[in-house]
């Protein structure tokens, strides 16, 4: 019996040897190229274009009001103050707060018939990001961990799952769920690299090599006495740090043009979205860009003007850049939150949590472009077409990445587990 979660039938092993091999290759390439600033190394970029799928997962922690974004209901009972505006796709209108994104609508598929289960934060974050599979007595990986497992790292050698977030960073092993710590995320707090990333000037390269050799021996001794998954995860974190130390220029914002900084916005979400693009360009398989504070129980419309305005600016710039670089063909872009917000407006001019009828946007590889799927009622309080739970979305996204949930499954120490909710299927209207 395998001691490790495995994919069946295709093995996408993520061994330390392979990882370090990738590190070596990319390090050599990087050395040959010198620093590469905000642009991907051409060889890596070509390779990614040809065969590698990537994901950028924009997570708005809380709930973005569907009525002030993807599914406006202007001049209706719950419509609020804002107008709907035309987009680059005839017949699709969005809220005026998405004025930049409206010009990129021809890249986007929006599903307006999301209907999920949880209206609380405590349950919503994990259930949505795990795809809410049936309860099997295990913690499923977050989507990033699942993709890291199923597709492995990209050839560039960078960690497969990186999380750009406000606040603190670190290695978030919990995101790996039952797959193990190795499939957790490397979180870049405030978009900054882990502390002590750079080699101190007092340590020479030779000393560093000797130090690393010594660490490897200690790791081997540790591995002999511990579960392989634990020892691999332990080594993995250090390996990731070493690789990132070679890519420190990724975090050097002086290498980003003023034009790009203005286009994405100089606020946290803009800076982090721009870093997300650069991480994709550099070969990270799965990038999660996280924004907090999307919870406008009070003063929703001023909050939306501020929050959605910033999302709009950076999201539109991201789509424009990925499209211009030809990256949308192999990059899946997803933007979502935990739930939508109530159509009803409370006394504090706020909207509360509303999983019953909301919207999720996506673009890129495997996804049709310039469509709106599903609809809510005229008042926006219920889904008027077939409702889709988060499990449907996970099926859709896996298929968009070339992974067939009907064929692939996890092996959790001998326990076969579906990679997505086995009572649901993909949203076929969205798939290209």
């Amino acid at each position, binding site marked *: 019996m395998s001691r490790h979660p495995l994919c069946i039938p295709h093995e996408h092993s993520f061994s330390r040897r392979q990882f370090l091999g990738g590190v070596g290759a990319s390090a050599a390439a990087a050395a040959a190229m010198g620093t590469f600033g905000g642009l991907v190394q051409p060889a890596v970029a070509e390779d990614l274009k040809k065969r590698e799928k990537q994901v950028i997962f924009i997570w708005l922690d809380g709930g973005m009001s569907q009525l002030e974004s993807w599914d406006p209901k202007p001049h209706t009972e719950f419509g609020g*103050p804002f107008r709907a505006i035309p987009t680059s796709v005839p017949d699709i209108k969005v809220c005026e707060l998405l004025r930049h994104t409206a010009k990129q609508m021809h890249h986007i598929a929006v599903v307006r018939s999301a209907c999920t289960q949880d209206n609380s934060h405590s349950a919503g974050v994990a259930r949505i990001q795990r795809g809410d599979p049936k309860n099997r007595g295990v913690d499923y990986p977050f989507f990033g961990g699942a993709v890291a497992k199923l597709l492995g790292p990209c050839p560039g050698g960078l960690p497969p799952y990186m999380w750009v977030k406000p606040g603190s960073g670190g290695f978030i092993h919990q995101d790996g769920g039952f797959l193990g710590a190795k499939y957790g995320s490397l979180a870049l707090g405030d978009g900054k690299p882990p502390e002590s990333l750079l080699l101190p000037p007092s340590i020479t390269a030779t000393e560093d090599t000797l130090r690393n050799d010594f660490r490897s021996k200690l790791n081997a001794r540790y591995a002999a006495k511990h579960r392989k998954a634990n020892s691999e995860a332990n080594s993995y974190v250090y390996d990731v740090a070493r690789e990132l130390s070679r890519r420190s220029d990724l975090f050097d914002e002086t290498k980003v043009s003023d034009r790009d900084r203005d286009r994405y916005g100089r606020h946290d979400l803009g800076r982090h979205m721009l870093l997300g693009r650069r991480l994709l360009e550099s070969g990270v398989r799965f990038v999660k860009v996280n*924004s907090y504070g999307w919870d406008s129980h009070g003063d929703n419309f001023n909050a939306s003007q501020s929050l959605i305005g*910033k999302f709009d600016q950076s999201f539109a710039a991201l789509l424009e850049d990925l499209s211009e670089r030809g990256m949308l063909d192999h990059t899946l872009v997803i933007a979502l939150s935990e739930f939508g917000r109530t159509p009803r407006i409370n*006394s504090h001019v706020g909207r509360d949590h509303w999983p019953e009828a909301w919207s999720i946007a996506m673009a890129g590889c495997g996804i049709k472009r310039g469509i709106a799927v599903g609809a809510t009622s005229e008042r926006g309080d219920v889904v008027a077409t077939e409702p889709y739970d988060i499990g449907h979305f996970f099926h859709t996204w896996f298929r968009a990445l070339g992974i067939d949930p009907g064929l692939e499954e996890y092996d959790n120490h001998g326990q076969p587990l579906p990679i997505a909710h086995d009572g649901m299927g993909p949203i076929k209207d969205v798939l290209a």
Partner: protein
Amino acid sequence: MADMSAKIVKTLEHSRQLWTARYSPCGKFLFAAGYDALIHRWDVSTEEPKLLEPITGHSGWTQRMAFVGDNLLTADSWGRLIAWKYAAEKPQPAWNLEQALGGWIRGIAISPDGQTVAVSGNDAAVKLYAVADGKLVGEIGPHPFEVFSVAFHPDGKSLATGDLKGTVRHWDLGTKQVARQIECPALYFLDRIQDSGGARHLNFDSTGKQLLCGGIKAPTGGFAVGAPLLLVIDWDAGKITQELEHEDKNHGYIYDAAYHSTGFVMAATCAMPGMGHLWFWRIGEPKPFFMSKDVSNVRSLSLHPNGTRLAVVTVVAVNGNGKPKGDKYVDGIAKIQLMDLA
């Protein structure tokens, strides 16, 4: 004089939430507007107010209104500004500007000579229109952020604007240039990436020596918690001389404020259900001398020309996550409380 209080004498209910209600200068009518974009009217010349047919013509939310002469000016969140001869049996637009601003009109003010209306909005613009015909007569700017509030100085030579970041700008109407800025940082907070708060309300006293600037102290995102705060600004000195701060941090924003003719300040505050009151505060004193326990979630106040009755807009709109069981799921309602001062 003895402290005043206010007591409910009549309640006018409306099936949708309202933003504002204003007595006409003649005192015969009460007009109200809100989420349904309609202009609602009551004849209040008799003891029992008589509901009149509403006026149509707006979209989105109709949030601001102002009277000048026999005109009522109404502004909506889609940028439309309309002038009505308000006393007509069926008021028709005297003029109608579809895009007086590029979006949500947040502030409206009438010049002391009654010739000009200023509107400010989310598009960071302030525009001046002639009351007589709706012609654009000037622009005031640029502003870097949304302009939530606007007020003419009683001397007619200056205009004050209040923005998202809590900056009050003094504009010289002759040169259309900024004469000075008065910062009110207590009214703004960047909560993660959310700009919260702002100078939501401005109005001068009749002498022009004081300017009231209202909002919420140290606002947060999320539940938008904070203490209602009305800043008293000495206009000549350009300095904040007193902070009229509600003692309870759950009472939300100052939504409206006005001077009573005897000099005290009346303010309306609103937050989560049951929070936000009507209070009266004499400037210079440490706390309000009247806090109504009979009304909550107050969105606006309007003093009848006779000086003895207030029309106070309150809303009843529940909160809660997800779909409630057995609930018809409708918008909240408004109750306009007519309150006698004594």
